[in-house]
């Protein structure tokens, strides 16, 4: 019998017993009070029923300019400057870091007993990259694959809730050497479930979030600074491949649960704005993080809550670099399924996501793959997997998943037999493995 099944049988009665008998004498007093209170009239604000982008208008789609004259002047100056640059022949295409597109798959890393270990993609050659004290987790490889970032909580114990552990961000070379602390200090509030760190495309900087504060720091630990004004929290940063934007999930301060939505901000802290916010009454955003397409023109995000099923939305940049409103990808499987945790493939022609198994009581999921436009969603493998953000191999041939017994597997896109990489951490729930992508890029 599974632990979930036993919990189903055991917990209701135990909880009822644990709550004890209720003294409900106060209820009559409350009803006397409510009888004297007038009910509120139904809110008439039409904005509540409109998509956020429609109701927010141009301020969401572009910067609000308070003085038209100033805008015209700035435009003229900008045009003149652009003309001068063109005449001087100084314009160049942005030099991006090379590793966008296919590459070989290098080491596959994962957490085991609080350490970070790695194997070759065939599951052989197990080695320890980072070893104690405490717990190390959330590894994210740099784009070139020569370094990785990770969180370290020296006083934490494996199996505990790492969100309450004091953790700092570290960077190490690909073989685990050269470890150095990147964040100036240690603090709580790092997700142990979703990636809370993202490399800039040139691998020179890192964006990370801790306790709702978004910071940018050089990979050598210098020039750490937070970005974004007060007003809402910032978590789960995702640096766009073209380097111009950092996507993150934000939540208004003082709002304990609701209205988490997707924002974008420039790395210098400017142009901070919401991008996708679910519409209507109870609907809220997602905290599963965003996934950029390799060309930085589209972004996928999970949206959950409200009366809608958990689903995946996609937003596209238009030709001018603005954003079209989010478009929900339809859930295609029959029954009460939920789609979440989208991850764009290396080449950008498809994406993977998890889908709730209808009727499953153990909370298990399956890995699905769909084309970039959401068409042709299909089951990648029939095995049930644990909740774990899918991660594509650099050669786009595999998707990393975690089985219900904690085995890290690579699911081949061609449907062939999954490759067992290793057991995450027997004896714990193994959820720490979900934070970060664990496959190293190597030169093709």
């Amino acid at each position, binding site marked *: *019998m599974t*632990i*979930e099944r*036993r*919990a*189903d049988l*055991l*917990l*209701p009665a*135990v*909880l*009822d*017993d*644990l*709550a*004890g*008998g*209720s003294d*409900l004498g*106060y*209820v009559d007093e*409350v*009803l006397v*009070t*409510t*009888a004297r*209170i*007038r*009910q*509120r*009239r*139904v*809110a008439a604000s039409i904005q509540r029923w409109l998509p956020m982008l429609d109701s927010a208008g141009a301020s969401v789609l572009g910067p609000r300019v308070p003085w038209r004259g100033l805008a015209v002047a700035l435009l003229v100056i900008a045009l003149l400057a652009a003309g001068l640059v063109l005449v001087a022949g100084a314009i160049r295409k942005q030099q991006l870091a090379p590793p966008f597109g296919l590459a070989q798959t290098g080491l596959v890393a994962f957490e085991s007993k609080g350490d970070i270990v790695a194997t070759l993609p065939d599951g052989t050659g197990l080695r320890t990259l980072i070893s104690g004290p405490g717990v190390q987790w959330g590894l994210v490889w740099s784009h070139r694959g020569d370094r990785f970032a990770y969180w370290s909580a020296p006083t934490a114990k494996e199996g505990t*809730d790492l969100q*309450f552990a004091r953790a700092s961000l570290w960077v190490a070379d690909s073989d685990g050497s050269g470890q150095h602390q990147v964040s100036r200090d240690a603090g709580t509030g790092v997700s142990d479930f979703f990636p809370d760190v993202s490399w800039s495309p040139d691998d020179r900087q890192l964006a990370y979030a801790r306790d709702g504060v978004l910071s940018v720091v050089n990979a050598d630990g210098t020039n750490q600074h937070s970005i974004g004004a007060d007003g809402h929290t910032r978590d789960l940063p995702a640096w766009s491949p073209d380097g111009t934007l950092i996507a993150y999930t934000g939540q208004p301060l003082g709002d*304990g*649960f*609701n*209205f*988490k939505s997707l924002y974008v901000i420039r790395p210098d802290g400017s142009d901070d704005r919401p991008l996708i916010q679910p519409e209507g*009454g*109870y609907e*809220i955003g*997602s*905290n*599963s993080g965003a996934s950029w397409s390799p060309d930085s023109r589209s972004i996928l995000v999970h949206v*959950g*809550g*409200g*009366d809608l099923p*958990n689903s995946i939305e996609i937003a596209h940049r238009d030709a001018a670099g603005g954003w079209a409103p989010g478009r929900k990808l339809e859930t295609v499987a029959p029954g*009460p399924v*939920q789609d*979440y945790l989208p991850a764009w493939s290396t080449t950008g022609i498809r994406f993977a996501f998890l889908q*709730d198994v209808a009727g499953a009581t153990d*909370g298990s999921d399956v890995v699905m793959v769909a084309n970039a436009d959401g068409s042709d969603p299909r089951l990648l493998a029939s095995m049930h997997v644990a*909740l774990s953000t899918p991660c594509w191999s650099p050669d786009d041939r595999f998707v990393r998943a975690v089985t219900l017994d904690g085995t890290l597997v690579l699911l081949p896109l061609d449907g062939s037999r999954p490759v067992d990489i290793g057991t995450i951490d027997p004896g714990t*729930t193994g*959820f720490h493995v*979900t934070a970060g992508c664990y496959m190293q890029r190597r030169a093709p």
Partner: protein
Amino acid sequence: MDQRQLVERARGGDHDAFAQLVRVAVVRLDKAARLILRDPELARDAVQDTLIRAWRDLPKLREPDRFEAWLHRLTVNACLDQARKRRRRVVEVELTPITDLEIPDGSAARADRDLVDQVLRRLDDRGRAIVVLHYYLGMPLSDVAVVLGIPIGTVKSRLHRALGEMRLGIEPEPSLAPATKAGQVA
């Protein structure tokens, strides 16, 4: 009169209908609040806040069939508000056992109860809310996500974490392990 009719009448200002709804629901709300907050006084305050807000905001409820889920949501939010107030106090309120009721069916049941009690103590308020909504109020995980306003993925992860803490205590089959072992926690 069924619940939907009562809700519609209460939405229209019928306080007697509201009182009927409250008397049916309040026992479970009170127990759920006590489980989440682990403090009977705070739980009572939370339920009071819930009922007042429910009456005041009932006209805004769009779907009468969702009344219970809505009420659960209000309760959980009121509990979390109370928890936030508790955290702001200079002197932290001691989390105490809720009750010392005698368990008639022996040591195994008491061991299970003690284990769940210990796990609930270790969880934060949100974690307890998820356990209570799913296992005590019987909500599907997708509805828990709706009520708490968080993604289902987060619900699953936190529930798995809570179950993981109970793993050592309740995973062994009764036939394979002594009954007293069920109460041990690593």
